[in-house]
């Protein structure tokens, strides 16, 4: 292939040795978490097809929980088997990496998904309709909002139990996303977890127009961004002649000279690399919600059913940051000096932008959306460190953050008035006096977001900033600190509202949840406090997991 002077003929290449194509060798054991989840998703589809409507809910819930738990057990098994450290390897013909970060993130995603499924399955919050307990999802998504078909569906007690397989598919994609070891797998995984999410966004039971609008926006912008990602992949492929991470990295490092003169002559190889890299980066930054690719976040977070928002906010971020880390640390480390300044800029505007715009928000869900943008900025600061510490700090932060987010959104589902969830902040006034416990729990999450010591938010923030400072990004730390201060303002505003304002007479009530949501919130609080007070074990875990295989 190094006959630089000639242009290869595809036909001859293909025709030369068709029998040489090897049968792919797949290490099923090492891929078992993903396979279990995807398999369960298919089972879920079958359940939808064959099991009577009345029993689907229980069946789906059972399948999902068992699958996620089994997959998590598989991850633990792999980690215990040393696949995270000494036996880290590239599996499935180089498509999937099984290494520390991948297992850590997969474990996190699976746990998050498990807890999220609890909130998906909650059926005690909405008032009973025609004798049926209902969840947060539309009775029949295809029916026109407010139309006869919808009324009929509601009356019949339909529920969209498809959400469970959809979540499982999304989780499957998310599991692959951070462990993808070539760009094609990356793209496919992205689509696999994005498409179910688009649909999930459209499935809200209340305020369906908003939900559908969120889905459209998310879908169109998501597709738009994945087109960029794909074009970036194309350019990188053009540059390196391969889409495998290590292959590209070798070319970037100059270990392999794989230059096509036709390209070199016309565009210059580095242009392909840089533009392609930037576009792939953009695709990932979109999923992360970094400024200026963040604008979908508030709208989608607001419109989507709250359990979905929680799941999305937590799990997508984990997956996307995992992929970003791998891309930057495995594929483009040789390009550090090019992407670091750019990422500095992105991190700064993300931290500041998210924090500043959040100050004037009036809707809890939008507020949390902007908060998630600001947090993306903080995590980016850790990503930029480009040290092993940087990786482990980001892993830790992601784990800490995802549970706080999940818990916070779970609390949001509880605060309700006649029109469903009461997300406007003014309605939260005096919540602390009506339901001190719920308000206190929410305050804990807010304080964790704000990074107050003894919460996981502080430990995470400290880890990330420490890594950044060690990695020579001191100014970034200072800006991070400033935007933390700004961010603190709006978290505190909510606390003020809950505790120090008089309750409104027409204010919302707090629904008493089933053990499902209760346990989700309890897990959130527990993780928040444990990671805040005694984070050492998890930091150890994260730092053991902090080495990428290549």
């Amino acid at each position: 292939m190094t006959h630089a002077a000639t242009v290869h003929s595809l036909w001859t290449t293909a025709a030369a040795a068709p029998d040489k194509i090897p049968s792919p060798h797949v290490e099923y054991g090492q891929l078992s978490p993903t396979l279990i989840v995807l398999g369960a998703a298919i089972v879920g589809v079958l359940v939808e097809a064959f099991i009577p409507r009345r029993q689907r809910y229980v069946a789906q819930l059972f399948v999902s929980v068992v699958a996620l738990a089994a997959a998590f057990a598989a991850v633990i098994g792999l980690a215990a088997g040393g696949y995270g450290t000494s036996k880290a390897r590239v599996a499935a013909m180089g498509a999937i990496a099984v290494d520390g970060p991948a297992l850590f993130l997969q474990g996190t995603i699976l746990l998050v998904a498990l807890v999220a499924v609890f909130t998906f399955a909650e059926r005690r919050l909405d008032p009973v309709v025609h004798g049926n307990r209902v969840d947060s999802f539309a009775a029949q998504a295809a029916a026109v909002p407010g139309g006869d078909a919808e009324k009929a569906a509601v009356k019949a007690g339909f529920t969209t139990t498809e959400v469970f397989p959809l979540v499982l598919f999304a989780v499957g994609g998310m599991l692959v996303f951070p462990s993808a070891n070539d760009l094609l797998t990356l793209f496919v995984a992205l689509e696999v977890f994005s498409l179910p999410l688009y649909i999930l966004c459209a499935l809200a039971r209340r305020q369906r127009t908003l939900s559908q609008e969120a889905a459209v926006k998310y879908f169109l912008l998501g597709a738009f961004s994945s087109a960029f990602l794909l074009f970036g992949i194309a350019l990188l492929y053009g540059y390196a002649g391969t889409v495998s991470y290590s292959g590209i990295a070798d070319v970037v490092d100059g270990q392999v000279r794989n230059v096509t003169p036709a390209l070199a002559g016309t565009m210059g190889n580095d242009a392909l690399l840089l533009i392609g890299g930037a576009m792939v980066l953009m695709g990932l930054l979109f999923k992360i919600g970094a400024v200026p690719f963040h604008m979908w976040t508030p709208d989608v977070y607001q419109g989507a059913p709250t359990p979905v928002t929680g799941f999305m906010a937590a799990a997508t971020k984990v997956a996307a940051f995992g992929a970003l880390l791998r891309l930057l640390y495995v594929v483009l480390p040789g390009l550090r000096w090019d992407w670091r300044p750019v990422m500095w800029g992105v991190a700064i505007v993300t931290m500041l932008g998210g924090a500043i715009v959040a100050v004037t928000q009036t809707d809890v869900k939008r507020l949390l959306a902007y908060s998630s943008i600001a947090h993306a900025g903080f995590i980016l600061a850790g990503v930029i460190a480009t040290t092993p510490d940087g990786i482990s700090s980001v892993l830790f932060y992601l784990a800490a953050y995802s549970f706080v987010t999940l818990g916070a959104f779970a609390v949001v589902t509880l605060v309700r008035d006649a029109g469903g969830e009461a997300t406007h902040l003014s309605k939260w006034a005096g919540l602390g006096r009506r339901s001190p416990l719920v308000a206190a729990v929410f305050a804990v999450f807010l304080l964790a977001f704000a990074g107050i010591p003894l919460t996981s938010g502080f430990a995470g923030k400290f880890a990330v900033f420490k890594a950044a400072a060690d990695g020579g990004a001191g100014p970034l730390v200072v800006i991070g600190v400033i935007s933390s201060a700004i961010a603190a303002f709006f978290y505190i505003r909510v606390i003020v509202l809950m505790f120090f304002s008089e309750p409104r007479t027409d204010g919302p009530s707090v629904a008493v949840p089933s053990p499902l949501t209760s346990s989700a919130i309890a897990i959130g609080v527990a993780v928040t406090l444990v990671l805040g007070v005694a984070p050492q074990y998890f930091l150890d875990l994260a730092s053991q997991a902090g080495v990428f295989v290549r």
Partner: protein
Amino acid sequence: MENLIGLLVAVPLLGAALLLCGGRRLDGKGHYIGTVLAAASFAIGAVLFADMLGRGEHDRALHSKVFSWIPVGGFRADVAFQLDQLSMTFVLLITGVGTLIHIYSIGYMEHDERRRRFFGYLNLFLAAMLLLVLADNYLLLYVGWEGVGLASYLLIGFWQHKPSAATAAKKAFIVNRVGDVGLSIAIMLMFTTFGTFAFAPVLSNAGDAGEGKVTAIGLMLLLAACGKSAQVPLQSWLGDAMEGPTPVSALIHAATMVTAGVYLITRSGAIFNAAPDAQAAVVAVGAVTLLFGAIVGCAKDDIKKALAGSTMSQIGYMILAAGLGPIGYVFAIMHLVTHGFFKAGLFLGAGSVMHAMNDEVDMRKYGGLRKYMPVTFVTFGLGYLAIIGFPGLSGFWSKDKIIEAAFAKGGTEGWILGGAALLGAAITAYYMTRVMLLTFFGEKRWVPDEEGHEPHPHESPSSMTIPMIVLAVGSVFAGGLFSLNDAFLKWLEPVTGHSHGDSPLSAAAVTGGTMVVLLIGVALAWAQYGRRPVPRTAPRGSLLTRAARRDLLQDDFNHVALVKPGQYLTRGLVYVDHKLVDGVVNGTAASVGGLSGRLRKLQNGYARTYAVSMFGGTAVLIAATLLMRAV
């Protein structure tokens, strides 16, 4: 014996604690407890005095370290007492006059429901004043110094329901605080210069420290003395302090506390000896004040304020004497003691008059009282004679020596100081005669008050007259006794040192001159107030009179120069704090909010706008990446 020194302070302190914390239970007998304890401390003082007399001239000082007070690094302050002849003099004066005034107050405050507390404050004062004169270092002296200030504050404002009393008390404290700043700076200077601020080491090394430092210390001590002793420019509080009950004026604002400045300067003699510039400042302050106070005294119709002006003036004499150095220290103290007798007597007399006249203080509404209150008249009259320096009485002996010493300063300075002192003597004679004439001679001028109660002047009860008599005896004989065989000089010389000045005038000439000016003063007053009836309302008077009535515009000056600008400054700062300092903070918050509001508008809900942002973002990302490579 040493242990008794501590007791001297502790006894009245115990009294104060008892009376102030004792509650209503002690209301009935509080005044007796207070008086007995004051007398007890006088008795202890007397025992110590007898003991001291029994020892040789240079072995008289006693020292008693009670405990280590503040030990921090090289800074070591002890609670330790030193009783030498100078302190002894003060101890006797304070406890003696103090006891008398306690007795007087039993009668004077009889109808006050808060009498117990009054005695508590008086005891507190005694304790603080004794601490002041017994301390063996400047810091402990400072405690007493502020302690007497506190007692003075409490007593001036004793009738707190009167706003004027409360204001006067506050003013006294604050003006004194200005002086205290001087004392504290002086102590700090001593510490940085000598590493200590105990009397003995500081004073014995004062000569070695370099004139600059010592001058600075001296000037700061002078500032302190000015505050406490109501000397120009910190004199303004004394007149107002007359708002307090009269026994307080007698004890604190005439006999003892206000003389603390003189004590301080005399005690620090070695420092001033080594700092001629500071000494010059001291004599200047003394000379100015003695005239200032005298002039103010001439114009006041309020009997207590007239006496207050006189006090200021007399202390001016003492300060002048103390500023003269070793020539004058002894005479300063001697005048201090005699002044303690006659001025306390005068105030008690004035109190007695007021007691009789329904608390009327305007002398123009007195007149002819000698018939109604013979004892008061006689004792007051003896005090009067003593203060103007009538030959043979106490004031004569002490004041004459000061005038002599002033001339002995030598040179032009000596003439100026001597002249000022002489002039002061003349004015003293004038205003004291005026007081005497207005109060006790002439026609009765009192009228019924608004409610129709006509005063019925009567002699005061014996609890009040006896102290007056005792003090009158002191006013008559103390000076002569002290001067007998130069007894006082010999008594104090080991502590203060003494030198005879080289006077350009003979002692006889000075005495003669003094007599002449004295007669002139008396004659003038007689011409003005004795010969013709006194109008009941004051005539407008000359510019000087009007100024003098307003304390020579001192309050007006303070008002314009300090109070008003201070108020503007404070108000301005309140505004600045709110608008500027806090404004920056709130402004930052507001601008973040504003920025947020504006950035928020970008989120307009149109998916296409979001796409533009992503598209633009990607373009920037690509451009930046390429640019980084290019750079």
